[in-house]
Every structure is written in C-alpha cells, then in structure tokens.
C-alpha cells in the first residue's frame, strides 16, 4: 500500500509540531516537519505531500489576532513558482489530499477563508473570536461528530472527549444565512455537547460560546478541515484526565487514545481519494 506523506508546518511560534508529527507517524503516514520558511522559499514543495497540517500554537505570538499574521503570510508571500502558499494548499485539497488546521491552524484557515468557504470565493465567512469567558482555558470537552459531514474523518468518533486549549475559539459566522448553509451542508463536523450529549452553547461544556456549538469546520469538499480542540494531545489513553479509572474498569482497553483515530481516518480519507 502507498505510504501517505504528511507535511507538518513548524516555526514562528507554532508549537504543537512534535505531537502532530507523532500522530501521523502512529497513524501509518510518513511525517515530515518543515519550517514555514522552508516551504515559502521552495526548499519543501507542497505538491510532494498528501496532507498539509497547520498545527496549534501561537504563530507570531497571536499578535494582531490569532492566526492572522500567519494567514497573511500564506496568502501573500510568493513561492518560487509565482503562486502563493495559499494556492498550494487549495491545490493539495483539489487533488484529493487534505489540509488540516488545528487550534491556531484552524484560526489561520478561517482567516484565509479556506473554511467554511461556502461561497467558494475564499473570503472570510467566519471568525474565531475571544472566548465568551474572556479567558484562555485548558479543559476537556465532550464532542459529537456529524456522520454526514463531507470530511469523511469521523468514523468511530461519534461521541468522544478531547482537550481544548485556546483563548479565541468562539466561532461566529458572517450572517445567519451563511450559518444555516453551514448547518445544511453539515460542515460543522464536531459539536460541543453537554453531559447528555446534546449540542450546547453553555459554558463550560461549550468552552468558548461558538455558534452551532461548532468545534470543527470543513469546506464543502471536505478536504480542508479546521478543528478547535486538540486530537494530537490524545494519542494515548494516558493523556485522558481519567485514565486510571478507565483502565481499571476495562483492563483490556486499548492503550491508544481516541485522538489518534482522527489521524488514522485522515490517512484513510487520503488513500480513498
């Protein structure tokens, strides 16, 4: 079988590149970590990869707004061929690869207009604003996946938990019409849920107050996906906040964390294309 090639972008304040690269490796892909500057200079070419991943962190210190300086650089700096890196990302998605942004990477994808991109024009249709609490927070949340989401990466992840770590995760849409369209197209792949598994906008189950209780958002092709929580921080059962009990209750339980399943699914989705 073909080995999937994943490119993990690093540098300029991105800080989740190690665990993200580990995630792809554990999911059976080859992970290559490259400094953003190496891509922009053309030392590393996007067309050599099936997956391009913008990890979490504080690119450019979150100054001017989370993901904004990074998005501007991706949008404006010209690669040696004359295209921008943004063009390169779109090309990866068009040829059946995937572009994934997590947390800060998601913020950059939204700023770039790559998600939700319902209008197809790459204009910003949404924003990730300051959490309603006004605070950066690290906590575990319960999320449910939408089986009809065009990003075919949620198998086995219908109802699960994973950590959030952000100050700007409140997704707002440009207008109610666009929001309805996102819902109709099932682009909100993950929703924050309350204890009963129902989507919620109430804090802290919804940690930021996002519209549609949206925790992950893709474009209509399903090939560009932003995720606010951190699946790469749940590669192992031992990342879970209650692992000692989970293990005691089910000693034969897998030592793998559920977050890894998302990466396995991403790799599968690429192979299926």
């Amino acid at each position, binding site marked *: 079988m073909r080995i999937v090639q994943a490119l993990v972008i690093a540098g300029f304040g991105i800080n989740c590149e190690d665990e993200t690269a580990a995630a792809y490796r554990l999911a059976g892909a080859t992970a290559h970590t490259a400094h953003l500057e190496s891509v922009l200079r053309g030392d590393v070419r996007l067309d050599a990869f099936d997956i391009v991943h913008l990890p979490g962190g*504080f690119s450019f210190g979150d100054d001017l707004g989370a993901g904004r300086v990074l998005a501007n650089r991706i949008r404006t700096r010209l690669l040696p061929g004359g295209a921008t890196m943004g063009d390169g990302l779109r090309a990866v998605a068009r040829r059946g690869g995937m572009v994934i942004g997590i947390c800060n990477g998601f913020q950059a994808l939204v700023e770039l207009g790559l998600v939700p991109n319902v209008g197809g024009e790459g204009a910003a249709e949404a924003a990730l604003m300051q959490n309603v609490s006004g605070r950066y927070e690290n906590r575990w949340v319960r999320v449910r996946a939408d089986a009809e989401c065009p990003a075919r990466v949620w198998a086995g992840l219908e109802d699960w938990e994973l950590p959030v770590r952000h100050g700007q995760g409140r997704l707002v849409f440009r207008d109610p019409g666009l929001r309805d369209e996102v819902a109709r197209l099932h682009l909100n792949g993950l929703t924050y849920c309350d204890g009963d598994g129902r989507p919620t906008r109430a804090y802290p189950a919804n940690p930021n107050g996002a519209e549609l209780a949206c925790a992950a958002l893709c474009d209509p092709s399903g090939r560009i996906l932003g995720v606010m929580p951190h699946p790469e921080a749940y*590669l192992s059962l031992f990342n879970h906040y209650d692992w000692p009990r989970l293990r005691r209750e089910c000693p034969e339980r897998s030592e793998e964390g559920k977050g890894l399943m998302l990466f396995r699914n991403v790799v599968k989705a690429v192979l299926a294309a």
Partner: protein
Amino acid sequence: MPETWTHLYVSSRPDRGADPIGERVRRQAADFLSIDTGRVATSKVYSVSPALDAARIERAQAALGNRVSCVVGVGSPACKGFRSFISVDKRPGVTDDEGRALLTVLCDLFPSSPEIASGRATSRDVYWLEQTLSPTDLGRIAEELVGNPLVHVLRSGPADAYEDPRPRAAAATRSVIEEIVLPRDAAGLLRLSETRLLSLDQVEMEAVRDYYDREAVRASRRLRGLPGDPTDCELEAIAQTWSEHCKHKEFSALVKFVDRDRGTTVEIDSLFRTYIVAATRAVHEVLRGWGQDWLLSVFDDNAGVVRIDDDRVFVWKVETHNSPSAIDPYGGAITGILGCNRDPLGTGRGGGRLLFNTDVLCFAPPTYDRPLLRGQLAPRRVFAGVRAGIEDGGNKSGIPTVNGALVFDDRFAGKPLVFCGSGSIAPARVGDDPWWEKRIDPGDRIVVIGGRVGKDGIHGATFSSVHLDEESPRSAVQIGSPLTQKLASDFLEEAGARGWVKAATDNGAGGLSSSVGELARIPGGAEVDLERVPLKYEGIQPWEIFLSEAQERMTLAVDPAVESELLSLARDRGVEAVDIGRFTADGVLWVRHAGRTAACLDLDFLHHGTPRKRLEAEWAAPASEVPAIPDVDLEAALLGVLGGWNVCSREGVIRQYDHEVKGRTVVKPLMGRGHGPQDAGVLRLSWSDYRGIAVSNGIVPRYGDLDPYAMCACAFDEAVRGIVAVGGRLPGPDTAAPQFWSVNDNFCLPNVAHDARTNPEGRRRLGALVRMCQALYDMAVAYAVPLTSGKDSMKNDFTVGKVTISVPPTVLFSAAAGIPDVRRTVTSGFQAAGDVIYAVGETLDELGASEFFRWLGLAGGRAPRVRAERARERYRRVNDAISAGLVASCHDLSDGGLAVALVESAIGGGLGFDVALDDLGQFDQPSVPLFSETASRFVVTVPEERRRAFEVILGVDARSIGRVTGEAHVRISMGGRPCIDGPLARFETAWRGGLGGYG
C-alpha cells in the same frame, strides 16, 4: 523630513455581543474598585510611519482585521454610545510585539518597499466606557486594572477628547565613556554606590578602590591608555558581577552561629558549601556505592544536569523573580518564566528541548485590605498580573505547566515570591563531547541571539539585591516577548543539533557583562565590540549596552569555521544573531565601543575580588505553648479549612495554564471525573516508550515561625512525598533500573545582615537560615536525593519610611525524578466504591501553624517534624506497593491534614467515603487526627482483592480506616459517634469557592 504617520484601528463589532476583554474590565472595576463603568468596548490602534498611501491603507486594513468580527478603520476609532476613554501606550523602548507584528504583515504585503522594511509601527489599547467618569476614577481603572505607569503612558478623559497617538522615540544622545573618580573616604564611596545604584557596601567599595590603587594595575592601565580610575562601564560591571544576585554573598559568607538551644557557637565557612554542596557530595558518594552514576553536572552551570539514559540528559532549574514582580507583576512574571526557560537552554552546549514549566507563587490574600504603602501594589493586582504573565510566558512558548502551588500569607504583601521552573531534555553527546560541558577555545566567536537591547532592565541584578521602596528604579522593569524567545530557542535547538554551538548561556541578570564575563572564564578572556550589538533605539550609553538585561537574549560561543552558516540559519528563522567579538586567553575582559575602550577588566579580580562577608547568626527556639483546642463544630471547621486560601481549589488558575501542550502529560494538575488536585505532574519522554518524569514542589513557610528547621524539612519532605505519591521510587541499593532524582532549592529571605538600628532582627533571621540549611542537609542525605541547582533571593523586604514588610523565611524544594513506566503511576482520586482506605504513616499531635489553627486563630503549638529514617522506609514500601500494582489511588497529606486529603480524593473520583478515626491513635479529640499536619503521610485506597498483599508490604504503617462509597457523601466518625456527616457537594462547594472571583 518630518515623520508622517498613518493610524489604523481595529474595534470589536458591537453586534457580536459583549466584548469579553471589555466585559472583564467592567466586572473588575465594579468588584475591585466599586466603579460603575457601564459597558466597556476595546479598540487597538496601530500607528505606522512613514504614512501609507490610500492603496496600501486599503490592503493593510484587509490584513489587520477580519470583518466578520471586527471593524477596521483609518484615523480615530469610532466610539458611539461611549462617554469616556482610557488609552494605554507603551513607553518608548518597551517591547511592542503587536507593533512589530504589523510591520511583519506590511513587509509581507509590500515586499519590495524599503521604507516599510525600515519603518516603525506601534500599537496601543483603547478602552471605551459607557459612563462619564471622574478623572480620579478613570485614573484608578487605568493604573490598577489596564495599565502600569512604569511601562505605559496612560491617558483618559471624555470619549470625544480622544486623540490619536504621537509616537516618540527616545532622543538620541552622544555616546560617552565616563571615568568615575573614586572618592578616598568611606562616606564618599558609599554615596557613589547609592547614587549609581551599585548596591555595593563599604567593604566592597573599598576593595574596588584598593584594586585601582595597586601600582601594577595603574601601570597596566597606563600602558593601555586607560584612566587610573574605573570607567563607568567597569564600575557597573564589577557591581553587577559582585551583586548578591550573581555572587550569593550571604550564602558564601563566613557565619558565626550562636545556637542558644544547644549552647554552641560555630564558625560556618559558607552555608552553600557547608550544607548544600556537602549534602549533594555525600549523596553522590552513597549513589556511587550503589553503582549509580546519573549525577552529571551540579551547581556549576545555569541548570543542573542528570542522566536519563545513554542518549539523553535531563536539565532543570527553578528560580525566583520577586522584585520585578512586585512593581510590575505582569512584566516581572513573564520575564521570570522566560528567563527561567533560558537556564536549561543556556546550560552546557545549549539548545535542549524544553519539556515543562512549574510555578509556585506566594502572595498576600487578594482580600488584603490594609492601607497600601507608597509604591506598593494591591495584592490582588499582584496576583492577577503575575498569573497573567505566567500564562502568556508559558502558553505562548508551548511549554506545559504541569505542577505548581499558590501560597498565601499577609507578609507577602510587600514582595510576592514568584518561583518559576523549567525542565528540558538534551542529547547526552554532541559528536564525541558530553553535551553538558561547555568548551570554548581562544578565537571562538561571541554571538548574541534574540531580542534587541534597550534601557529596559538596567540594574536588574543589583536591583534585586536591594530592598524595594517607593523610589525603586523604573529602568529595572522589562516586558517579555515569548515569540522572540520561542524563535530563538527553536533556532538554538536546530543549530545545536548541527553541532554549531560550543557553549551557550543566558543573558539574564547583568546582561552581556554577566554572560560574556562568565563564559570568558573558560578560555580566559574575551573582547567585545559594543557598537555591533543591535539596539531598540539610539541613545543608549556603552555601559548600558553592556549591562542591559533586555530579555530573550542568549550568548553563544561559535567556532569561526561554522559561524556564517549559523548566522544564515538565524536569518532564515527570523532570529537576530550578531557577532559581537571573540574569546581570548589573555586574562582580560576587553570591552570597546566604536574603537574606544569602555572597559578593560582583569577577569581574576572581576570574579574573585569580592571581599568575603562576615555575618552573625543566632538561634533560640521561640517559646511556644501548646494551646488548648476549643470545642468546635467539626463540620464548620472542615468547611473553613477547605475554603481557606492555602487549601481551596486552584482550578480557575490552573485552567488558564496550558498543561497538555506537547501531548505528553500523563498526570495533569487536575485529574479524575471530579478534577481533583494531584501531588506531582508526570510526563512521558516520547511516544515510542513509556519512560517519564515526575515533578513536584514542597513549600510551607507557615511552619517557620515555630521552627525553621522543621519548616525546611517539611518542605523537602513534601516535594519528595509528592513524587512518591504518584509512583516515583526513592534511590536505593536494590533498584534494578535506577532512576535519577534532581532537586532545586530556592531560599527567599528578608535581609539577614544584622544592623542594630536598621535590621535588629538580622542575626535571628540568619540563625533561622542556618537551621534551614541544616535541615536541607539532613533531609537530602537521609533520602539519598541530591540537590542539583538552586538560587537564593535575599532582601525580600519592602520599606517605606519606617515601615517594612518582610517575607517570612521561605524555602521551596522542586523535585524531579525518573519514572520507568508512566502507565504504573497513580493519581489521587478515589476510583471505586468498596475500595479500602488506608492512612499510611503515623499521625501525631502536630497542629502548630496548621490550617486548622489558622481557622481557629490559634498561635503556638508544635510544628510537624519529619522523622526522616522512618519516612524513607515508608516511602520505599509505598514504592513497592505501587510497583506491584496494588494501589488504586494515593494522595499525600499536607495542608489541612487527613480530612482535606480525604475530601480532595473524594472530589477527584466523584465518590464518597466512610471513615473511622479510632485506629489512628489515642487522641482526646477528633480534631487532632482530622487536621494534624504530621509529615510523610498518605491516604491510599486499595481494591478489596489486593488488600492482603498491600498489608503484607506496608505492615503496621498502613491503618485501614474505612471504605470508599458510591454515594458522594462524607462520613467520618470516632468512638462510634459521627464527627462529620454530610453530602460531598457541601464540602466541594466550600473548596471550589475559596479563591472567589480572584482565580
């Protein structure tokens, strides 16, 4: 040509709901200052020079703000519906990352525009308030909630009076190298020390004068065309090298110690060598006897180094940043944590990968309401600012905060204690050389990387060596830039991995003077050309360039053969790196500015010329009676203790610190269904195996009033106990796979130099310190756990006129230990109904300075004493039980004793318990076993089927006291009668609510 500016603003869109930042200001103004602001909105205003044309403005606006969430405009921001404003500008030279980010964006947008590449940009925050407020109220909100006059220019007024900023740079001045004529008399010397903020005492000033008087020195200076007296740069460099901060003068002093309890008088030749170094040496001997050799580098470098395995070493340092945090809490804390990160980064050959942070913060309770002295900040402000600084410093660097503590005591109202620690992993070897050994040859280049130099942080080293008062210098304040440091540390790791760095060190206290001065000792000399150092702005004098503590800088020794490659990689990575000179072997530190000599210092004198201090200490245990304990409602007592400052939940603070980035945290600060507190953090080292590290802290200043020896021993025990509780194994002869231990000690004391008039308590304070050091030695040796690095911070006093607020003598031990398999670690929360609850360790009547006594308002009593030999035996047995997989949960007993530990374990598991106190011993009343804080104890739960095996290992040291219950209910009885009986929710509410709105 006059400067032209374009002003752009970004405001939150009013139709997107309340602005969360504005909302916080509104709430805090109401809660803390009783000012009704009405709604509060915020804008950012960016100013760019030279001005942009219309087309560029259009593109800049599009890049600056997402229209979905923001309003972006040119000129003054709109403020419809708001009647007042407050604007917050950075003072000239203060780090302005957002201004710099705007330039980054503009350079990306207009890549071929030289005027932008060399342009300037600044940012300011504007707050819009709905109500019309008086200048006084606006001033209070400005100074107490949103800004600090030390680093910000604050303006406020009616909304329609708002004006766009007129940014200014510091005025250019001519570079001057001044000769400082040393007065002949003592009074003149002391005056000079004071006016130049040298913080040198009379003996030290005389030593400087005598050195310059030496005929050999005069002759050699004449030969080099130097003046007979020191230059400003030389005098400043000497002062900072000799500062308490760098030289630890109290810890290396000759101390005459009168021990009135034992009737002895001894001369102690350096507390540091006699106790700290000696303890580690003794432990090292023992370890070697067991065939263990994982101690690699202790005390010499910026951080201690121990071996993980053949390929990796663990590097770890904890230190304080108290004085800066007292006057600018946010800036002090963020530079504290970033500065501490640079210690492991600047150890050995540099470039380790930072793995975790830990923070221990000591404040006065935020409700402290005594009148503030001039220059003193309200404790709640200090708390909020320090918390936020550590949030930004840690989170933005991508380093998880895995463990920490908050300690409250009114005596931290003058100076808070801000302890920051960082651990890293580095390769064991670089080529054939050990990574932890710096190697510098004459001819190697001196390269400085990271931030630019401004006047910020001048005199930090000497400043932290003096007590604070209302005139404390502003130049000592600095603001950190986590991004700058992140880029520099990523770069250093990359350059280090290529073997391009021969030595690295931090530019912290003392700036270049310290980093180059220290590194120069290895080859035996250095030459520096200060004009090559990148500056934030003009007008900085040569001596200031040499001394500036501007942040995020590191100094490297680089082989000239690879220098150009290193510099080119730095450019690529957005890191400023410059060659500022070279290392030599002529015994001299030669500093030049544009060809003129600014300083030419004999290295030997610089590093060894400090006169030895002689200090007097005495100790007699304070008379302390054991007070009668009144009859109290035990439930009320437990609720009071649980809600107390030192016990209550820290969740609000913990959640704002990223504790999971890097994806390796296995035991987080909060675990279990109910998110209960843990005794130590545990991390995995990689994804390919399950080896890990446990990290914990021990600190209990309250016991020090009764017995400083006991206090220090309890702090050491607490740090070790936390690691034992999660499954870390104490060193011993029988261990098949020995695991490293590495402990940092941090002593924080008030002024210990006796002076009949100004410091009559000095002898006694130093006596307390001697007792603490004796405890440190005894504990380290008893547990065979070595100290590997540490720091002391003396003179933690805040003085205004005749009033002084001094911190209680405090020591923090921060421990890290290797964990062979993180899957075997244990957390504190109860796991299942029916599990047997054990109290492990003997409970004694030790309620002195306990949380229970605090709640009762009782003084006196016996402070807990560590019985180290018994504790060690117990810990080894607990190790065996955990290794054998017998233990379901384990929680150490600390503040609040058994009752608090039980409730915390119940909260973590979301379960209840039913416990009887009778088997704990013969006590007159239940409050003793409930609240006694006897050291070295645990609450352990064991599944019924493992009960026998557990009891075989623990023997009589484990007393079965009850069971975990499925119903979330607290039931404690003695003599068949219930003492406490109520739903867990009641206790949990008290515990969760303790920090109020201050977390």
